[in-house]
């Protein structure tokens, strides 16, 4: 039985690191989804110019590694705008901007997969386009895209670990500090693998389960 004391004696330190991981994951999911829904809807309904301009943002984020986005946001962006930000703030901004592009693509695919007749039926009742999108098309699209959106959520949690590179005090980074103090590489990294697995796997399965129960609400 391996000696877990290096971890157990630092449980408060590591627990707070875990809470930072959860915190930045949740925030980047929240902001990423917000950005993604708005961008995805604008690209679908906003006309060609809007589609191209926002397409540039989306395709750029698809071309840049998360690591590059995070490093650039923390080190380069402050030099351009003139004020500095904490590593955690930079981390959330970088993660949200990157995730938002993928959410936008998913939302766009979802919106176009909803039958045209649904939009027509909503307009025929006298709704404005905005009302029709907001109340009729978007809800169905989000339900249909639940599996894809769920897997983006797990991506967000996994990518939060990359924020360790810009010294955000999340779980990976703080664990590396413990490794630095104790030289217990195997113990710490193996435990980390288990911890991340215990977070991400249930999220993925949970979304699957939820989707199976509500899928009929999205088929038109």
């Amino acid at each position, binding site marked *: 039985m391996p000696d877990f004391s290096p971890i157990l004696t630092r449980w408060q330190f590591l627990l707070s690191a875990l809470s930072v991981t959860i915190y930045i994951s949740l925030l980047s999911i929240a902001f990423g989804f917000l950005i993604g829904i708005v961008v995805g809807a604008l690209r679908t309904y906003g006309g060609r110019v809007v589609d191209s301009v926002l397409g540039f943002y989306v395709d750029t984020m698809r071309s840049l*590694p998360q690591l*590059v986005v995070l490093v650039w946001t923390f080190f*380069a962006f402050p030099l351009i705008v003139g004020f500095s930000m904490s590593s955690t703030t930079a981390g959330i901004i970088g993660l949200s901007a990157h995730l938002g592009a993928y959410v936008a693509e998913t939302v766009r695919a979802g919106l176009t997969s909803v039958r045209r007749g649904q939009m027509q039926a909503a307009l025929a009742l006298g709704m404005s386009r905005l009302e029709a999108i907001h109340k009729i098309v978007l809800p169905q699209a989000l339900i249909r895209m639940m599996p894809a959106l769920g897997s983006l959520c797990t991506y967000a949690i996994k990518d939060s*670990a990359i924020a360790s590179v810009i010294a955000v005090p999340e779980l990976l980074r703080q664990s590396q500090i413990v490794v630095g103090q104790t030289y217990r590489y195997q113990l710490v*990294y193996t435990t*980390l693998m288990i911890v991340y697995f215990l977070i991400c796997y249930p999220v993925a399965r949970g979304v699957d389960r939820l989707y199976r129960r509500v899928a009929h609400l999205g088929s038109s």
Partner: protein
Amino acid sequence: MTAGWSLVWDNAGRFAEGALLTVELTVVTMLLAIPGGLLLAFLRLSRWRLIRFAATAFVELFRSTPLILQIYWVYYVLPSFTDILLPGLAVALIGLVCNISSYNSETFRAGIVSIRRGQWNAGLALGMNSAQVMLKIVLPQAAMRVLPALASTWVSLFKDTALVSVIHVGDLAYVALKIRTETFVILPVLNAMAVGYWLMGYPQAKLVDWIHRRYKVAE
């Protein structure tokens, strides 16, 4: 700021080497991860429960944990199991191949399973055995189905290679960050890094879009 940009041009050679390594890592990983993914897919469809379970556990482990952690894990933990000290590049490759094979196995498994049962039956009814049906009927159709997903995974992989920089493997990200640390020049160097990835990644992303459009599955 011209002082900064001239620094970038002076180091163009190093940037280029880094970019080259990024590309090499991507290509070699995918070359290994396609057979790797196929192997895992077949193991997951095996008749024996134990093999299915082991393969599934492997795949789920690599899909539910961060790649950056997997790279650290292979780097620090694997040597103690095997007593071999591997160079950073090999470690990076092992981590990437295990990770991408896992994603590919899902893609292949879904592709194989998506071929309608009727196709199997048609092949068997002609008198072929299971292997022949798999090779001549199911796999060729599955190949077309999986191409869009594989293309997306390829671009993901290309971006993931940036993570090998954390174990000091000299890809584009590592080179850029090293130059920044050496010279304290920040903005031009980081911009150059971003532009470098963008120039390589953007066409790939567009190509993936084209592949998705071209190979749309029509039932």
